[in-house]
């Protein structure tokens, strides 16, 4: 009786589906979060009779054959990298990317990470850092006696220092883009890492062709659509329930079998 194991693969797949939906909903208010979706593929087929096998010496063929499937598996959980909405925060160190590209940051171990979450702050040394204290690359130091900071669409950081009316350029934000954004490895903390699937990062100046522009005083919200997620959740729950019904039915048939031999 394969039905039992087939239905259990169906239940496992729907469980993964619910987990992915739960994570999307949990991150509804996470800055720069990109929703994920689980994708399913069918498992291998057992060929009892191969389609097109000959059924007589007169050249007649089985039109369909007998192929019994063995269930379903999770093919991938992929990230949908559409733009999230921008919300105004009025904080001068909050920057949002409108378009493609990731900010490059240096993690505590010295390796590079990439993020869309532009809720930056200043370190005690006046450096532009993420909420976890990772330094934004290339490093930008804001002078101690700065009155105001402006970041333009091209990522140029200008600071107005006390006693000097003319703003001075203190740094330039860069964006990195990847041949395949969906192949980045999410490690939590809104940070992504480069993988063989994502391809190598290509750094560029915001606003140049193919790169997004910078919006100061805004944050990119998560692109999770709550209505979509709830609909998906209902579908997943029902699918789970139906697979459990198959297990019950198969179990009843087996019970009947064992009762026959009394």
């Amino acid at each position: 009786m394969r039905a039992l194991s087939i239905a259990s693969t169906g239940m496992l797949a729907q469980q993964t589906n619910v987990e992915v939906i739960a994570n999307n909903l949990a991150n509804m208010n996470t800055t720069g979060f990109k929703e994920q979706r689980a994708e399913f593929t069918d498992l291998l087929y057992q060929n009892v009779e191969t389609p097109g096998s000959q059924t007589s010496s007169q050249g007649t063929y089985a039109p369909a054959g007998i192929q019994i499937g063995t269930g379903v598996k999770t093919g991938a959980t992929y990230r949908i990298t559409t733009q999230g909405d921008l919300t105004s925060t009025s904080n001068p160190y909050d920057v949002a990317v409108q378009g493609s590209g990731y900010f490059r940051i240096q993690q505590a171990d010295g390796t590079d990470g990439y993020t869309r979450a532009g809720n930056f702050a200043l370190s005690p040394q006046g450096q532009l850092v993420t909420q976890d204290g990772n330094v934004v690359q290339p490093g930008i130091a804001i002078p101690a006696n700065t009155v105001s900071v402006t970041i333009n669409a091209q990522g140029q950081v200008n600071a107005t220092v006390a006693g000097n009316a003319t703003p001075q350029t203190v740094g330039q934000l860069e964006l990195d883009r990847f041949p395949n954004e969906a192949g980045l490895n999410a490690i939590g903390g809104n940070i992504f890492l480069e993988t063989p699937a994502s391809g190598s990062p290509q750094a560029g100046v915001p606003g140049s062709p193919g790169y997004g522009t910078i919006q100061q005083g805004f944050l990119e919200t998560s692109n999770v659509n709550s209505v979509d997620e709830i609909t998906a959740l209902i579908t997943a729950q029902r699918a789970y329930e139906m697979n459990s019904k198959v297990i019950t039915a198969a179990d009843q048939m087996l019970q009947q079998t064992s009762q026959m031999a009394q």
Partner: protein
Amino acid sequence: MDNSLLVSLSQQLAAYRSMDVIANNLANVSTPGFKRESAKFEEYVTHVAPSEGQTGQQSVSFVKDAGVARDISQGSIETTGAPLDLAINGKGFFTVQTPNGMRYTRDGHFTLDANGQIVTSEGYALQGDSGAITITPDDQNIQIGRDGTISSIVNGIGNQIGKLQVSAFADDSALTKQGDNLYSTTQTPTVAADSTIKQGALESSNVQPVLEISHMIEVMRAYQATASLSQSQEDLTRQAIDKLGAMPN
């Protein structure tokens, strides 16, 4: 040996087979591009010697697997918003290159790989008119038209990248399922006419849960009926042994 027990056995094996097919349909209720299947059976007639008091040949019918029929009707088209999610409305399959040769799929979820090629989630390259399709990071705003033409904007200028190869076959039901939503065949593909491509959407599985659940109940009941038939047959045999074999006092 009693033929009725053997006939019941053939029916019970058929019920198991049906149950497996239904379980696979329900397990794949959210697999994009999945086509539901149903087990088909045929009568297998065999001739037996006439029983006591009868003349002429008698025939007994067994149940035998005939095939698994695939329902190739269109699944509903569900919007996802991902630019490389494609759905075919109408006949035809996307063509992908695998290490084992060309394979065909209705699952239109594609991504880019590290080299910018459009690939399936297993990393197999989607085929266009002239082989694999490569998107460079300079290609912005990728558009895939209803006829499968892929275009983008490079530095503000329109750029045509290629056209999807949508393959159609004379006999869709003769394609062999390979798992991973792929089909293989020895038939020569032709270019699918009249089918349209929708970007940002996926074709969902065409499994109808209500239908499958009612089939499942049907199979279960048929199995129970056959089981009770075998039971009464056995009771009959036991009674005969008890009655006829009773020692006369």
